[in-house]
């Protein structure tokens, strides 16, 4: 069976907008992703090194503010849903399978290492900027948050600024 084509981007955007709007209407908050990673990382640190966590103010404050840990965290549940939804979409469009996407010039290992490094940058930046493309940029735009919108410009501005340097990762 052939892969099914991707959805029209404007239609997808419209549907995503409705999902976001529904979420805001019901819960009063937008969507996110990186916060779930944060919740999991923090509770992992707490479990592995309780002594260290007790001595680190950042971790202490966070766990005081989020008493239930990841299993009471809104974003963790949202991301579990994200995984389910994405997997379901992959199944009906026949796109599920162990695969690796990369530019034509690089090896699989280079791609994996670049993905880890890029992920590390993004994870770090999302903490500093208090949100990623979903939490800051997308949800921020929906509620006209100044902070969210400037974060969005910073993300894409810097992406374009360094795109040329890293073109070998992606282009012929």
């Amino acid at each position, binding site marked *: 069976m052939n892969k099914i084509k991707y959805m029209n*981007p404007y239609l*997808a*955007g*419209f549907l*995503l*907008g*409705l*999902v*976001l*709007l529904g*979420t805001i*209407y019901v*819960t*009063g*908050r*937008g969507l996110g*992703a990186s916060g779930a990673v944060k919740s999991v*990382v923090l509770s992992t640190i707490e479990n592995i090194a309780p002594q260290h966590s007790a001595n680190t103010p*950042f*971790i202490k404050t966070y766990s005081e503010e989020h008493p239930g840990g990841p299993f009471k965290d*809104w974003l963790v*549940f*949202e*991301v*579990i*849903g994200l*995984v389910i*939804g*994405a997997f379901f979409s*992959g199944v009906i*469009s026949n*796109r599920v399978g162990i*695969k690796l*996407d990369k530019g034509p010039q690089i090896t699989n290992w280079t791609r994996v290492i670049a*993905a*880890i490094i890029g*992920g*590390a940058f*993004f*994870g*770090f930046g*999302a*903490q*500093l*900027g208090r949100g990623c493309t*979903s*939490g*800051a*940029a997308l*949800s921020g*735009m*929906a*509620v*006209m*948050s100044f902070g969210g919108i*400037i*974060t969005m410009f910073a*993300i894409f501005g810097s992406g374009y600024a360094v795109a040329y340097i*890293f073109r070998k990762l*992606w282009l012929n």
Partner: protein
Amino acid sequence: MGPLVPFIISNEFNLIIALISGIGFGFVLEQAGFSSTKKLVGLFYGYDFTVLKVFFTAGVTAMIGVLLLSHWGILDISLIYVNPTFLWSSLAGGAIMGVGFIIGGFCPGTGICAAAIGKVDGMAFVAGSALGVFAFIEGYPLLEKIYLDEAWGPVLMNDMLGMSRIIFAFILTAIAIAAFYLTWLIENRVNKTQPKFSKEKIVIYSSSVGLAFLILVLIAMMPDSKSRMAKHIDKELKQKDFTSVEVQPDKLASEIVSNYYKINIIDVRSQEAFKLYHLPFAINIPIEKMDDREWGKIMDQKHKVNYFYADDRIVARKAYLWAGHIGKADNYILSESSANFNKTFSDLVTPTQDASKKEINIYNFRQKAASDMAKLVDALKNSTQPVVAKTSKIKGGC
């Protein structure tokens, strides 16, 4: 009225909502092609602008939707979470994320989406982002200054630009459409494709653009739910006969003395006026704040009777009418101003010798009522302070 959490939907059930939202989010991201890193970075090299199209359409759709819902009065815009602005960390964080985007080929949401359908690079990206978060946590003492500097609070883009929400919505929608057109031109050039459009597509696209602007125009032109309500109340004010619901100071005083635990006395004047003088046991709900959620429990209950008063009879009547629209409580109005009420019970003139029996009765009643009220207020001063119901601000963000 939305948001439904935590007033209508509990915080526990909210986690189920999170799951459902996430499923929708993940499904659409994957359908849009965001599980493919090549499609994502296409944005930066000009061959595929799917990211921009999806994100901008979603942002504009949700933004217009939020405006529309708040215009209809079914979403309380003052309660929804607005990401706070910390200028330097927003910019620096964004810049670092941009670099991560180019090197890693994903953002966190899309990386998780890719990992979910078995993309190894997606999994690597998610693992990498956990490392990045870890680095931030451990390095936090060094970053604290930039992280907390220039805290502006939850400022809105339109306020920064000095325009109304609706004008900003117009501008952002126009920018989005211009961006769609330009990127379409760029895509065609970079990919060396011939621009072609079926008639059907042109009709659908132009009518969606038209619809977006039409909704914005309607929001801008139509009076919102609050002003419609005000108009409605003005109309009722002229038509309604209030004699059956207006009570005299003497009646209210006897209610206070004998039934203080069965009534709410609601002062709808300003906070300052309330502080200067208010009736015994009165709580202050300035009329413009009457529909705040914290008062919902008072406006909509069957156990106590509400008595509204103000210094202006029209204001008190408006408050009465408005309360009738907010909830089902039993409402009455004090026929006199607060000053007159005060005078009735404090400036008591001893009746002369030749006063009628009725006058003497009134005098005796008022004197007793005044002293009883004072005693009651004194006896209950610790227990009758209204419990201020806190409207919880919703926490959100990434």
